[in-house]
């Protein structure tokens, strides 16, 4: 029964990872950029919400709206100032520039807020610890369930946006081939800016959820980036529902690992991630060899 419980908790944790990761996935899908500052942007949003609610006494809802709007603007600025230039300079430069940005953000956060860990749990009252009991031994946190539901809604919303709206069509066209998209009248600069804004807003939502679930500190960004990235890769790059599946796999692995050993949470997550990558590479090369064999067979 304890294992069923761990799996349930892992699945719910996967919902959080999906929220955190969908922006990373979108940005990779549209711009072929892996934003190494993604986790730090999430933590930045958490600190901003904390600042508005705890320090300035603004109620949570307006604080959230303010921060998300600000993060959207930051996303556009990120695209215009950093990513656009980096993309022009080659495929490696975005990694270098976003890594530099990550270091700047986390150290500025440390400078501004100090080393103390904080949490947004007080801001949501009893939601932070309320739970529903499914059976005698399985309790699910209300917050975890809400986060999972939010993840499904967010992914469904993004999916609808991509498949049904003008912006979504432009995003998909630009992802396929930016030059051809330009030829048919799509403003790829605007599309990139929109993608960056969406990605940073979802990162911000992820960061706020993280802060509600647990304690956060200025240097928490990189580990969140790694979790998000693992979810994206396990789920298959640039597929939204795959990201949810990847998040669930990661969450379940971590949750089971934690049950096996106190150090197991992180180790199990990383091991499963590397295993999935290795298996995929092995299958990929087997497939390639198979193709080669058919080619050779035909020519012989």
């Amino acid at each position: 029964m304890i294992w069923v419980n761990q799996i349930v908790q892992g699945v719910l944790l996967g919902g959080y990872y999906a929220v955190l990761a969908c922006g990373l996935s979108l940005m990779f899908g549209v711009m072929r950029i892996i934003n190494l500052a993604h986790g730090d942007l999430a933590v930045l949003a958490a600190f901003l919400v904390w600042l508005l609610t705890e320090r300035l006494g603004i109620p949570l809802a307006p604080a959230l709206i303010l921060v998300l709007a600000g993060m959207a603007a930051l996303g556009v600025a990120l695209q215009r100032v950093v990513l656009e230039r980096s993309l022009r300079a080659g495929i490696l430069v975005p990694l270098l520039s976003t890594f530099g940005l990550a270091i700047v953000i986390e150290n500025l956060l440390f400078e501004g807020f100090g080393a103390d860990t904080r949490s947004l749990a007080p801001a949501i009252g009893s939601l932070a610890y309320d739970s529903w009991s499914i059976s005698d031994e399985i309790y699910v946190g209300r917050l975890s369930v809400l986060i999972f539901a939010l993840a499904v809604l967010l992914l469904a919303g993004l999916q609808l946006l991509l498949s049904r709206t003008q912006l979504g069509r432009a995003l998909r066209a630009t992802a396929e081939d930016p030059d051809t998209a330009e030829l048919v009248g799509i403003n790829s600069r605007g599309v990139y800016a929109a993608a960056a804004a969406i990605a940073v807003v979802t990162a911000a939502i992820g960061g706020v959820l993280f802060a509600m679930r647990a304690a956060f500190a200025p240097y928490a960004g990189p580990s969140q980036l790694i979790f998000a990235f693992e979810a994206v890769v396990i789920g298959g790059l640039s597929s939204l529902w795959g990201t949810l599946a990847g998040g669930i796999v990661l969450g379940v692995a971590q949750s089971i690992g934690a049950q096996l050993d106190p150090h197991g949470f992180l180790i199990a997550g990383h091991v499963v991630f590397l295993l999935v990558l290795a298996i995929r590479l092995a299958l990929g090369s087997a497939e390639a060899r198979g193709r080669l064999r058919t080619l050779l067979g035909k020519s012989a």
Partner: protein
Amino acid sequence: MSRRASIAIERWTPLSRAASIIAAALVATLVLAPLFLDANAIDRLTTLFIYILLGTMWNALAGYGGLVSVGQQAFFGIGAYAAIRLSHAGVAVYPALILGALFAGLFSLLLSTFALRLRGGEFAIGMWVVAELCHLLVNLDGLIQGETGTSLIALDAIAPGHRRDDTYWLALAAMVTLLALVFALLRGRLGGSIQAIRDNEEAAASLGVKVLAAKRIIFIIAGTGCGMAGTLWLASSITFQPQAYFGVQWTAYMIFMALVGGLGTFEGPILGAVLFFAIELFFGASGIWYLVGLGAAALIFALFLPRGIWGTVEDRFGLRLLPLGYTVRIPAAAEPAAGGDRSASRVGSLPRC
């Protein structure tokens, strides 16, 4: 007809001859440095050598191999950890340091079959995950006692004065050996292959470049070099705390050195390491702002000066201190319009990223 005959392709220019002689003289002076420098200066120089080694290794990976790794600290930590383990098992301490680095090289060999098949960002973060996993697994070792860490006790038995000088010489020897190795490889056939891969992997493969083999050589050298840097760091600090060795800040330092000095130039990361060393010396005490500055410098150089300081100087003035590329010399008589030696243009030198 006579014009074609008078064009010469050179590796050595008067400047590169002079620079090579100066470099050799500098190394000879550094060998003798413990005779006339005080203990503090020797410690500082050891640190500088480690930085130069790290910067050069990261540059070989990213600047030449096109592999941006956020996880080179894996080898840094593995090298130091292996040295601790070997020393604990009874191996003499200095051989243990070298064997530790070779162990990191072996680890990179094993990892290469997997890691090198990842692309771009996948490779970058995949390596990061590898480093995190190494960190977590090393923490499980009872000898290390988690984040508490341990120390290289065997080294404590050696008198501090001897220890300082021996570590200094080992650092100098390791730096010169690995830099010479990278230099020789880049000058040879592999250099051309590696740069072709960096510029366009598919095109290079279609021309018959053995992409995976070339990348693997670079990856293993970088793994060994970072491992050596880790064992040298261990030798100079004695203590081993996993957090301090497997931290991603090492990658931040390496990126700073390679990027600011000049990614894809041989001299660049050396200059970058000297700059980093100087900045740390003067601003390291300012703590957080110093780190903010490092990150901002990496960001600004990536955006506005992707060739770094040395790359920009090289492009602007046609300077080339070490004979790595080729120079085509067209004498004034052969091409009067261009006017003398100023018309010298380079072929086969390092193209832009």
